[in-house]
Structure formats: structure tokens, C-alpha cells
């Protein structure tokens, strides 16, 4: 499992305040603020296509963050994350269509409702070993997908449900450029929330449950409570991500919430690094860009011998699926701590450059 932070030798923390700080140094805080400001400028610089990719990274990044709480920090396994993501999407669309609640409130509300649904599935399994949660979430995946197809009052059945565009104080936000800021705000808030959670008492309890549940229990940590809590939180972030996704596309169809999407979410956090908050965003970016880059590659290789051998044009979808699986295996075998670990190593290397030892 991933180490939390790489602290140089001799750098001791002498107070609890120092130990639980969000940013270890002033420079890192300033770098983060600068980074956010730079990202704020993105809509005016990058093309519409890149912008849509950035929005996707943000949306999926929030959902993947939820999954990382349950898998990375608490050490439980959830294979039904996409179903909760979908549930959030449908809930938000339903709330705004049926009750006329402003979209601004619908998104967090969708998160809360999804968390409640997640708890229904998580409760029986949270009392047992992690393996059983994996199987229960697999069941949840199929049951929820079946529910989406069945509950026409809720999802519109085979007809995609429409979702209102995002509005704030009566001012409609239209177009990707404006929606980008909504997503960015949610990303910043969610990532700050989780960072804050992990440094708090509850967050440390989650990590203790992951590292050695027996010791954690002996220390007085209520295992059932924290397992259930982490699962509920995961569903909450999945719901928020799903709601953002719904209002981004403005239609919610039954497609795209299947188990393959759940596997992609798992891939995101494994590639990014289990138990790493910024790693989640890196992994999400990787998984969003992977199919796109395969697309570019297939265009670049058109009519070459490789193209003729693989039949790229017709089979790109299968190759993408295979690439996802292969990359998960490669990362698990060769880089189990994910991109976050690699990033820390790169940073450490440049910090000491040119005297690396």
C-alpha cells in the first residue's frame, strides 16, 4: 500500500499542527494556488476539444476520489462504483425535472441520496471481510442497472432523461467554457474536503482499518462504523460526480454505467495510486486520455501494415478495452503504488539534482 508522504530524513514534525497540515511547506501551498489559477485560465487558451477532456477529467476525478476513499484509504473493494455514479446522474436530473429544485442544490442532494442508496448495499457487507463487500457491490451494480431500466418514472426507461443546464441565481450557464468553472469549483471543494478528512481523526481511523483491522479494533476504532462510513462517502462522491456528468451532457441515458465503467474507475485509482489524493486526479487524467490517445494513434497509423494487421478501424473499441485491462495488470505488477509514487520520485530526484546520492 502506498506510503502517505515522503518526508526527508531529519525533517521532524514537532507539533500536531505541523503533523496534520494540508500543505507541508509554504511553497507547496503557493504552487497549488498557482496551479488552480492557471487551470482557471484554461478555457481561454485551449481548444474546445481539450476543454471537454478537462471537464471529463474533473467529473470522473470526483467520482474516482470517492472510490479511492473506500479502496485506497479503507482497504475495502467496490466493484459497483459506476452504478452509483449513474444513480447520482439520474437523481439529479429527476430532482430538477420533477420538483423544480435549482440545479445548484440538486448536485449535492444527488450526492446525499446516492450515499443513502450506497449504505443500503454497504451495510450487510460492511460487517464482514472486504471480499464480501466486493461481491455485494457487484450485486449492487447489476441491481441498480436493472432498476434504471425498470423505473421509468425515475429514469425515463429506454428514453434518455433530460437534465437541466446548470444555473446559479437564475443565471443560466451555457456552454463548456462556463461549465468548466462549475466542475473546477467542485473538484477543488471535493479534493479539499477529502484532504481534510484524511488528516482528521476519522481519516486516520480509516487508514488504521486498512492497515490492520484487528489492531484498529483493539485501539477502539469501531470497524463497522468506519467501513460503512467510507462506503457511504464513496457513494456520495460518486453521486456528486454523476450529477455533474448529467448536467454536463444534459441527457442521462442508461448507457455507460455498466461494470466496464466500474472497472475504469478502479483502473483510475490503481494507476493514480491507492491512497493518494492527487494521484487520483493523475490516474483519472491517464484513463481519460488513454482512449483518446489510442484514437490518435489509430488515425496516425491508418493504412500502415500495423493497421492492416490489427484492423484498427473496426476493432479500436476492443483494443481499448484490452488496453485498460493490460494497463491495470502492468501497474499492479510493476508499479503498485501508482503514478503518485512515480511523481514523488521524480520530485525527489530533481530536488537532489545533480547529486542524487
Amino acid at each position: 500500500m502506498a506510503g502517505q508522504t515522503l518526508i526527508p530524513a531529519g525533517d521532524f514534525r514537532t507539533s500536531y499542527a505541523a503533523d496534520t497540515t494540508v500543505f507541508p511547506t509554504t511553497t507547496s501551498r503557493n504552487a497549488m494556488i498557482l496551479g488552480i489559477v492557471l487551470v482557471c485560465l484554461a478555457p481561454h487558451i485551449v481548444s474546445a476539444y481539450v476543454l471537454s477532456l478537462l471537464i471529463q477529467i474533473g467529473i470522473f476525478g470526483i467520482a474516482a476520489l470517492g472510490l479511492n476513499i473506500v479502496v485506497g484509504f479503507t482497504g475495502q473493494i467496490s466493484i459497483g462504483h459506476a452504478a452509483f455514479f449513474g444513480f447520482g446522474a439520474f437523481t439529479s436530473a429527476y430532482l430538477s425535472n420533477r420538483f423544480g429544485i435549482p440545479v445548484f442544490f440538486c448536485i449535492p442532494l444527488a450526492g446525499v441520496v446516492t450515499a443513502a442508496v450506497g449504505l443500503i448495499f454497504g451495510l450487510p457487507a460492511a460487517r464482514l471481510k472486504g471480499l464480501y463487500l466486493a461481491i455485494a457491490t457487484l450485486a449492487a451494480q447489476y441491481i441498480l442497472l436493472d432498476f434504471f431500466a425498470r423505473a421509468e418514472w425515475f429514469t425515463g426507461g429506454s428514453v434518455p432523461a433530460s437534465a437541466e443546464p446548470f444555473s446559479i441565481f437564475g443565471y443560466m450557464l451555457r456552454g463548456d467554457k462556463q461549465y468548466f468553472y462549475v466542475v473546477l469549483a467542485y473538484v477543488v471543494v471535493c479534493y479539499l474536503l477529502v484532504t481534510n478528512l484524511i488528516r482528521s481523526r476519522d481519516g486516520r481511523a480509516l487508514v488504521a482499518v486498512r492497515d490492520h483491522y484487528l489492531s484498529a479494533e483493539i485501539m477502539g476504532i469501531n470497524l463497522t462504523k468506519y467501513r460503512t462510513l467510507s462506503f457511504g462517502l464513496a457513494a456520495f462522491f460518486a453521486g456528486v460526480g454523476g450529477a455533474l456528468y448529467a448536467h454536463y451532457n444534459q441527457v442521462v441515458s442508461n448507457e455507460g454505467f455498466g461494470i466496464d465503467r466500474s472497472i475504469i474507475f478502479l483502473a483510475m485509482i490503481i494507476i493514480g495510486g491507492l491512497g493518494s489524493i492527487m494521484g487520483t486526479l493523475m490516474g483519472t487524467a491517464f484513463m481519460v486520455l488513454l482512449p483518446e490517445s489510442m484514437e490518435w494513434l489509430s488515425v496516425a497509423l491508418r493504412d500502415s501494415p500495423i493497421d492492416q494487421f490489427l484492423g484498427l478501424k473496426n476493432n479500436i473499441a476492443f483494443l481499448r478495452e484490452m488496453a485498460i485491462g493490460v494497463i491495470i495488470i502492468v501497474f499492479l505488477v510493476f508499479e503498485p503504488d501508482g503514478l503518485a509514487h512515480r511523481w514523488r520520485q521524480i520530485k525527489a530526484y530533481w530536488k537532489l539534482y545533480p547529486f542524487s546520492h
Partner: protein
Amino acid sequence: MNTQLLIQLLVNGLVVGTLYGVVAMSFVLIYKATQVVNFAQGELLLVGAWVCWWLLTKYQVPFYLGMPITLVFMFLFGIAIQIVILRPMIGEPIISVIMVTIALSTVFSALMKWMFGVNLQPFPRIFQTQNINILGLQVQTVYLMSLAVSVAMMIGMAWFFRLSKYGLAMRATAFNQQVAQSLGISVKSVFAMAWAISATVSAVAGVVVAVVNGVSAGLSAYGVKVFPAAILGGLDSVGGAVLGGIIIGLLENVAHFLDSEYLHWGNLYEIAPFYALIIILMIKPYGLFGTKDIERV
């Protein structure tokens, strides 16, 4: 009350259920011997069925030759998976191991779609007569064959575990790896053998399903149905898996009967096993015959 339909569906359930039982049995075999929860069980069925189909249609190999070749291939395939992918994962956290099998299932299912397409391919006809009349009930020959093959495999498995030396070694390893090792059992080869046997047995089930329904990517759904069956029977009980499979198969068809006769909700039979799974997890998580010392927290 439509008795004719009910009986037909119950027979159906029994046949499908024994197949679930066989797949669940091979799933439990891997779990018991190597502590790996195999999410790629359905893909083992799929690979076996496609390989057999390929031999039979592309190379016109007769069935009595094609089937053994398929089984030998799957035996080696199982060993290869264990050595190449699963062996480096020994000692890794359970999440990593589960994720590897999930990734394997993605890779295999995509690979099969890529190689053989997504369409349903009919299996070459093996039996001359389509139906046999038993007690006034029309039963398809392939169903009888399926039932016979499943029962034969279950008996074979029981013999293997109870009476053969290797089966004993496998049971010893499942009981305690270190003790088994100190008694001279090669745990490595037991692990490899567990995967090999599991892959082979799954392939038999895969071919049987393919003969009945044709081959398509949908075959891997059997791998998902394994979970209700195995949890119901108890995750570490081979006999329980068989019984669990049969019960899930019957449950599916009873749900189908209730649905078509009374409820008219549609597609109830597909989803019923998963509701059953959640209920089992709530009231009896170690299943009917599973070890009860699952650490409850």
C-alpha cells in the same frame, strides 16, 4: 396455473443450475486452494467455448477430437495464467489480487470479441435427434447431455478430492499452506494445478453451454452467476457450490415463471440471483456449508 410451463422451467432450472454448480465448483476450487477470488471465471468458459468452436468450424475437427484438444489447451492455459499473472501476486493485498483477475477478465473478453466478433455463432450440430420424450416431456438432447456431463464432472471432482493422492495434497494445501509445504507438498504446483483444473472444468461447462445456446460474448455471464451460487453454498465448500448453483438455477426459473404468469415485471429471472445474493449476505454470509469462522467485525 400453468403446470406444463412450470415443470418445463423446473427442468430448465435443474439443467442450468447444474451448470452453474459446475462453474461455481471450479471457482471455489481456486478460492480454496489459492485464496484468489477469480472474477475471470466466466472468461475461462468463454475462451474454452471459442477454442472448441474454432477447432470444429475452421479446421473441421470432429467433436470427439476437438473436445480433448480444447481441454488440453485449457489445462495449459490455466497453468500459464497462474504462473505468469497470479504467481507474482502471491503475498500482495487482496485488493490487488482481485483487481488482477478483474483486469484479466477485461482482457480476455475484449480479446475474444476482437478475434471472433461480437455476434452469436451457432455451434455445429453434435446430436442427430433434437428431442427425447421422457415421461411425456419433451427434453432437448443437448440438455440431457449437459446434465450428464455436469454430474459426471461433479463425481469426477469428488473422486479427485476424496480418493486421489493429488486431491489430498490440494486439500492439505487449502487447510494450511505451511504445514503442507513441510510435508513435502509443492505448493507452487498445487496452485498451478488448481488453476489448470478450474480452467478445464470451466471449459467443459463453456462448451456445453455453447452446444446448447451457441457461442457469444454473453457466455461470460455465467462467471457472474457464480457469485450468488458460491456465496449461497459457502465460499469454501465445493459441495456447497454445486448445491448453491442448482438452487440459483431453480430460483431463476421460478422467478421467470412467477414473472411470466403473475407479475409481468419483465426480466425478473436475470436479476433475482443478485437480490438473493444480498439477502444471503445479510442473514447467512458464510452460506450453507461454508466455514463459520469468517471474521465478523
